[in-house]
Each structure stands twice: as C-alpha cells, then as structure tokens.
C-alpha cells in the first residue's frame, strides 16, 4: 500500500473501528485510540513532504489500480505541489480536532471521534484523487459524516443547519456529476483528470462545463451569493465541526477550481474570469461589511471566512503565479487561523455557553493566557505582517495589481475591514472591564487547550515569518498549471 492510500485509509479504519466497538462506558479509551489514530494519520503524511521532489510538476507518489472497469474508473492517486500541503493540513487539523473535543464531548464519544476520523480520511482522498469519479466519490462522501456531526452535536438550530449544508452542497455537486460524465464521454471513456487536462473542447461546451464546476465549487468555497449555508452551519456546528469546515472543507471547493476549472476548461475560465473576480470582490468587500455588524462571534468568523476565501478565488482567476500561489498560501494560512479562531470561541463557549459578543467583556482579566492567544489569532486574521494571514493576502494583492490597479485597490480594502471587524470584536470580548458575573468566574485555559492553541500559533507564526518552504513546493506545479491555462484548447 502506498503512502497516500495509508493517509486515506488509516484514519478511516480507526474511525470505523471506533464506530463499531466504542461505548460511552469506556469513553477514555475511545479518546486515546482516536488520538493515536489521528497522530498516526499525521505521521504517515510527513514522508510525503520530506520525499517530495519540488523540481517536478508531475503527480508524485502515484498509485494506480483498476477499480470499476466497466466505466474505466481507476483508483488513481497522486499529489503535486498544489495538493501535498492540504494532505498534511488535513491530517494536522484532525489531531487538533480530536484534542479539542477531549473533555467537551461526553455523549456518543465514539461516534463523534469516529465521524471526524472518517471525515479526515475522505477529505485527504479528495486532495489525492486524480480520477474524476474517485474525486467525486470522496467529495460527496464527506457530506455524510459532516451532516451527522452538525446534526447530533450542534446547537439549537442544528437540524436546519445540517439539512441546509447537505442539500446546498449536494445541489452543486450533482451538476458537476453530469459534467464529469460529459467529459467521460468526450474523452472517449476515461475518468483520468490528467487526460482531461489535454482534451480539446469547443467553447460552448467549455462554458457549460465551467458553470457546472462553478456550481459545485462555488457552493463549497463558498462564494457570494451561494454562501448562506455557511454561517448557519458554522454557528450550529460543534467547535470541532466548525474547525474542520473552515480549515479544510471550504478548501475542497477552491482546490476543485484549480484541479478542474482552470486546466480542463481554460478558455471558458479566461472568458468568465471577470465574473469570478467580481463575485470574489463582492465577497471581500460586502461580506466584510456584513461581518462588521454581527452580534454572534461564530457568525462573525464565518463571514470573515467567506471574505478570506474571496481572496483565494480572486488570486486564482488573475492567472499569475503570484496570484495563484498567494491564493494557495491564503488557503493554508486560513486553515490555521480560522481553525484557531473557532477553537478560541469554543473555549469561551464551553465555559459560558454563549456565543454572543455582548455576553463577554474583559475576559483578559480572568483568562490572561488565553487572551494572549486569542488576540494573536485575531491579529493574524486581520492580516498582520509576520503572521500567516498577511503573506497570502499580500501575494494576492501583488498579483492583482499586475492585472488591474483598481481591482487590487478594492481587494486591499480587506486589510481595513478585516482589521475593523476582528479588532472590534477583540475589544468588546477581551478588553475593558469585567462585564458580568460569568466572566468574573472564568478559569484560564488548561494544558490541553494550551497545547492545541500553541500548536496552531507556532504554525501561524512560522508560516508568516518564513513562507518560502510553502511557496517552493508549489512553485513548479503552479507554473505548470498556468501554462495549461494559457494554452487554448479550442480547435
């Protein structure tokens, strides 16, 4: 079994084991097994990075087994400089999520941990699949555990949020399924994504395919105006669910744009780039303003996620190396930072059981260590230089300037809005006098919470100060991708 298969199936196997054997009676054993599974899953992904050849744009660590020969579908896996980081990121966040749910989840622990581990394996599968149908199977299968997670452990309106999440994303992906089948037919019966990259297509077919992919991926990213499921899902999901949603699930959509839309339908992508850019800018500016007026912390971070993801899609569709790598860096950094933001909210929620900004005030007085972390992550979210949040935004803005100065100027407003909504929240929640009795009796974070926040803080800082390893790995793959985009497939 190859490394990628191990990275996919190890967490799934542990998850299934937990589902099958776990009982709340020995919840502690379940937690430890889940942690060991998550750590082992992460350990498997490390050799991917150390053994990665940064000089090659080809798919590496390839595995190829026949799967459904009737339709010429193969179990085809591989990673390039674009996807390798996300495999690691997913495995890393899974460890954090298991730690985050340690004491908080006391009911049906085995199902909770099992669902997250299975979800982790499936998401890694999405990033590794280079067969269209395999990609789709993993992409869709992630809906099931997430639906269960939101529905069982979520907040008061969890059922509504779970349904909205599931049906919204299913709608998009079903249209993509038809597109995949059309490509299967056009390519003479192949689901190989790399073969599709070379497939010539007329412009009208490209346009339809582009919008089918757009339906699937824009919902997942999510882009304005199909973003409305995200605030609901985030608010109602348990902390771990929000973290996985923000840190990884949203990336599945953005990743899809890079793997499908840009290389398979380059002409339509160029033709409709203005459309994506417009939607991205609306997300950045308008959603940034919406975030400003939120009363609910989780909602605020959810809207901030949409704005940040707007940056990612903007970077992709200016078709420059800075833009695309910037978008990718932004995706990774957003994985760390938004994950951490949701963890911080979770820490407060576990103690006070409220997500309202107004329920807090002066938290720094009772939880100084925690407040230090929270303020740091808020700064990263606002794009403070030196943190991971800055690098991606800066690269995207630089990339956009080349395309058009005014677009870049508009995009750069995020630095203002991002700072405004994040710091205003920080001010109201953490600073000032102790506002009420709840806050007065808060206890500071314990070593478990310290550990998970510290891990993310280190990652955020490291990426902010020295992003070169990240961009180095991406470089060749991104240039190769842009070559594809530049070449017309019409003929």
């Amino acid at each position: 079994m190859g490394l990628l298969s191990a990275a996919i199936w190890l967490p799934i196997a542990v998850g299934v084991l937990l589902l099958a054997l776990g009982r709340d009676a020995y919840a502690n054993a379940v937690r430890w097994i889940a942690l060991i599974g998550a750590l082992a899953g992460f350990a498997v992904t490390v050799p991917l990075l150390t053994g990665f050849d940064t000089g090659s744009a080809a798919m590496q660590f390839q595995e190829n087994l026949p799967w459904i020969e009737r339709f010429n579908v193969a179990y085809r896996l591989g990673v390039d400089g674009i996807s390798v980081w996300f495999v690691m990121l997913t495995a890393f966040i899974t460890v954090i999520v298991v730690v985050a749910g340690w004491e908080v989840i006391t009911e049906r622990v085995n199902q909770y941990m099992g669902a997250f581990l299975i979800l982790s394996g499936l998401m890694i599968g999405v990033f590794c699949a280079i067969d269209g149908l395999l990609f789709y199977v993993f992409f869709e299968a992630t809906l099931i555990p997430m639906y269960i997670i939101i529905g069982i452990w979520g907040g008061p309106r969890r059922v509504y949020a779970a349904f909205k999440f599931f049906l919204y994303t299913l709608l998009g992906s079903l249209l993509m399924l038809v597109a995949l089948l059309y490509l299967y037919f056009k390519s003479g019966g192949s689901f190989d994504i790399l073969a599709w990259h070379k497939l010539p297509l007329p412009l009208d077919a490209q346009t339809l395919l582009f919008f089918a992919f757009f339906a699937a991926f824009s919902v997942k990213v999510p882009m304005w105006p199909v973003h409305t499921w995200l605030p609901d899902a985030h608010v109602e999901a348990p902390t771990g669910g929000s973290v996985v949603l923000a840190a990884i699930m949203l990336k599945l959509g953005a990743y899809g744009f890079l793997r499908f839309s840009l290389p398979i339908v380059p002409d339509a992508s160029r033709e409709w780039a203005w459309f994506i850019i417009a939607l991205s800018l609306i997300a950045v500016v308008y959603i940034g303003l919406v975030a400003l007026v939120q009363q609910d912390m989780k909602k605020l971070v959810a809207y901030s996620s949409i704005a940040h993801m707007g940056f990612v899609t903007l970077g992709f569709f200016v078709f420059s190396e800075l833009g695309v790598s910037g978008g990718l860096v932004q995706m990774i950094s957003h994985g760390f930072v938004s994950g951490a933001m949701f963890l911080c909210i979770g820490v407060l929620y576990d103690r006070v059981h409220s997500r309202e900004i107004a329920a807090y005030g002066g938290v720094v007085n009772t939880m100084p260590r925690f407040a230090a972390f929270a303020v740091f992550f808020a700064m990263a979210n606002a794009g403070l230089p030196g943190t991971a949040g800055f690098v991606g935004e800066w690269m995207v803005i630089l990339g956009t300037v080349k395309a058009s100065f005014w677009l870049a100027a508009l995009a750069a407003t995020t630095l203002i809005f991002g700072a405004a909504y994040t710091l205003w929240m920080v001010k109201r929640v953490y600073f000032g006098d102790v506002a009420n009795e709840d806050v007065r009796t808060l206890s500071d974070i314990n070593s478990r919470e310290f550990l998970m926040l510290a891990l993310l803080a280190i990652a955020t800082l490291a990426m902010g100060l020295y992003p070169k390893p990240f961009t180095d790995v991406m470089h060749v793959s991104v240039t190769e991708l842009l070559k594809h985009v530049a070449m017309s497939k019409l003929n």
Partner: protein
Amino acid sequence: MNSMNWLVVLPEIILVTMTCAIAVLDLFLSDPARRPTFWLTQATLAVVGAVHLLFFSGGATMYGMQGLVVTDPMGHLLAGCAAIATMVTVAYAQPYLASREMLKGEFFALTLFSYLGVSVMCSANNFLVVYLGLEVMSLSLYALTALRRDHAVATEAAMKYFVLGALASGFLLYGLSMMYGATGTLEIPRVFEQIATGKINREVLILGTVFVVAGLGFKLGAAPFHMWVPDVYQGAPTAVTLLIGAAPKLAAFAITIRLLVEGMLGLAVDWQRMLIVMGVVSLVVGNFAAIAQSNLKRMLAYSTIAQMGFVVLGLSAGVVSGNTLSAANAYSSAMFYIVTYVMTTLGTFGLILYLSRAGHEAEELADFAGLAKRAPWVAGVMAVFMFSLAGIPPMVGFYAKLAVLQALVTTNVTAYIVLAVVAVLLSLVGAFYYLRLVKIMYFDEPAETAVIARSRGVSALLALNGAAVLVFGVLPDSLMTLCRDAIVKALAT
C-alpha cells in the same frame, strides 16, 4: 427451436413439484412456527436459484417447449436474483408473521407460486407465456395482500390491487393482441422480424405499443400508472409489501426487456418517447409526494415510484437516432439499477419488519425517533440504506444513478443531457426525505423505550444486507459487468 428441450424449464419443474409438495405437507404439521415448511421453502428457492445461476454462468441461449420459453443469461440472472430476494423476504417475514398469527402454510405456497410466475416471466419467449407468468405472479400477490382477511385496510388494499392490477393486465393483453393481429405471430423473435420487414401497418403497431407500455408501467409502478403503489404498500402486511416490492420488480423488468427490446426494438423511437415522459413524471410525482408522507411505508412507496423513474429513463436511452450502439450500455444500466434497488428495498422493509413487534407496527416515521440511541447498529444499517436510496457515494445506489446518467449523457443528444440534469435535480428533492429519516433516527430524542426484540438470525441477515449495499458500493464492478454481459447476450439473439 421446435424441440421440447425439457432442461430449459428445469427450474420451473422443480418449483411446481416442490410447491405442491409443501402445500400438502403443511396440512399435516402442527408446529405453529412452521419450521419444516419454512426450511423446505428456503431449500426449494435455494436450489432453484442455484440452478438459475448455474445456467447463467453457462452463458448459453437455448429455446425450449417448442419456442415458448428461452433460457438466456439475462433471464437467469434476474431470476436468480429474484430467488435470493425471495429467500431473504421469507426470512425477514417469518418472525413478523409468526407474532401475528399469519404464519400459515398458504403464505409459503403462495410465495412460491408468485416466484414461479417470476421465473416464467424471466424466461418467456412468447406473448402468452409473458401473460401467463404475469398472472401466476399477480394472482398469488393479490391473495397474499389479503392474508390478514379480518383487517379492513389490508382487504381494501387487496381489492384495489386486484382491480387495478387486472386492469393493467387487460391493457397489456389488449396491446399484445393488437401486435398479434398486426404481425400474425405470438413469438417474440418472430414479432421482431415482422416489424423489421417494415411492411406492417405502423399505426396498429403504435397503438398496440401504447397499451403494452401502459401495462408495463403499471407493473413497474411508474407514474402515471402508479396509483396502486402507495395504497398497496401501506395497506398490505409489511411482509407482503416486501414481497411485492422485491422480486416482482425484477420480473417486470425482465418482461419489459423481452417485450419492448427483444420484440419491439423496431418501434423504439415511439416507446422511448413514452418512457421519457413516464420517467420524468415518476421522478416528479414520486419525489414530491414522498416529502408529504408521515407513514414510512407510504413514503417508501413514493420513493419506489421515483426510483422506477430512473430505471425507465435508463431504458429510454437505448436507441439514438436509429442507432443501437448504446443499447447495451443503456439497458444494462437500467438492469443494474433495478437489481441494486431491490437489494436496498429488501433492507428497508426488512428493518421495518425487524422493528415491529406483537401489537405494534413500526411504520410511522415517529417510530424511528432516536433509534440511534436505542439501537445504534440498526440505525446505522438503516442510514446506509437511506443514503443509498438518495444516491450518495459510497453506497451502491450512487453507482446505479451514475450508470443511468452515464447512459443518458453518452447519447450525446442535447435533449438527453438536459434530461440527465433534470433527473439529477429531482434526485436532490429525493435526498431531502431520505435525509429526514436519518435526521429522525440520529438527531431526535427517542419517543419510546421498548426493547427491540432481537432475533439473531434476522439481525445477522440485516447486517449482511447493509454490508452488501456498502460493499457493492465500494466495489461495484463485478455486478455491473454481470449485468452488462447478460444484456449484451440478450441483445445478440
């Protein structure tokens, strides 16, 4: 063609002999659990199923009874699957019927007779044999529906089933008689040849086709010929609902292929149009009406209508602009769909049977509230079935939908691609009510705490059923290839 070739009807001979023997033997039994009858029935079905599958793996096409019946891989695969489905049905049904004093010898005899009908339908090579098999099967099912004769709802369902079923059979027979009048033959291959000559009056043929398609639509349960489905599914004792919903669907599919494809392929342009309308209407009616149901059996009835819509759509993509190149692809996708659908249906109704206990039918959606807390395994298996019906990978239902959509898209005709998009959007509507059951089981609080009576054998079978849906989901290739080979051979003759 003109020899008797008794070997061809070997499964039917075994069946008739054993059914009569079981019916008589049962009269002398005093065991209320009917163990000997139960095991003999299972053994008979197992032997017949094995014979069918053996013939299937032989792969040969033979004619028997002077051309009245045919033995080909498609018929044997469907009949073999139907035998397995009937075995599973009987196993699920036994504890349910026993706790309601309905476990009489008649149940077993009639079940075997209905399977006899299925077997005959699968190997029919003649209009009259098609009709004969259909009637043997249908009459047994009508009687079974009324098994609980002092129960008003069940009796009403049986009457409705009988009257509408008889009407459908009449349609079919009328259509077939028109075909006979126009072509002068009852043998399906001869009919095909006659139509191919192009000398037959087309108007008569098309009028006949309309009636044949309507009759088949009734038997498949596709809209707008679906009115009996919800009432019968809900009204019949759940064990019988399962019997109606499983093996007969395979048989209905078999005669659809025999009549429309093997007999009337020359008229494909006309019946395909009818099938497209039926498919879309089924998807709309089934999916939207299912949302409004609070009774699970009724909801599943509407879901069946929607699922049949997909099967019918798969059948409608065989002949594209006069070209039969994509025929094998399209028909095998429909066949794969119906086989996997039966696999899933067995599980869903089996679970309803499993959760019902003396004096309580677990057929309202509310009965499933919080099931995940009361019995996590049972809820897990049910969730697998629901996700499969909704077409979410990695359950087998996804690949069934994929195969049909693939058949539609591969035609490369804009209208068919639009059809694929429409089907996909309507299956999104369908996902809602399947998800709702998952929600009720997983997110709601349990309303009752009654312990679920566990029978170890049935539990194991249910787990196996759920595992099959999952395993064929991860590795669907073998079953897909079997269906394709069977259809290719059926088309070649």
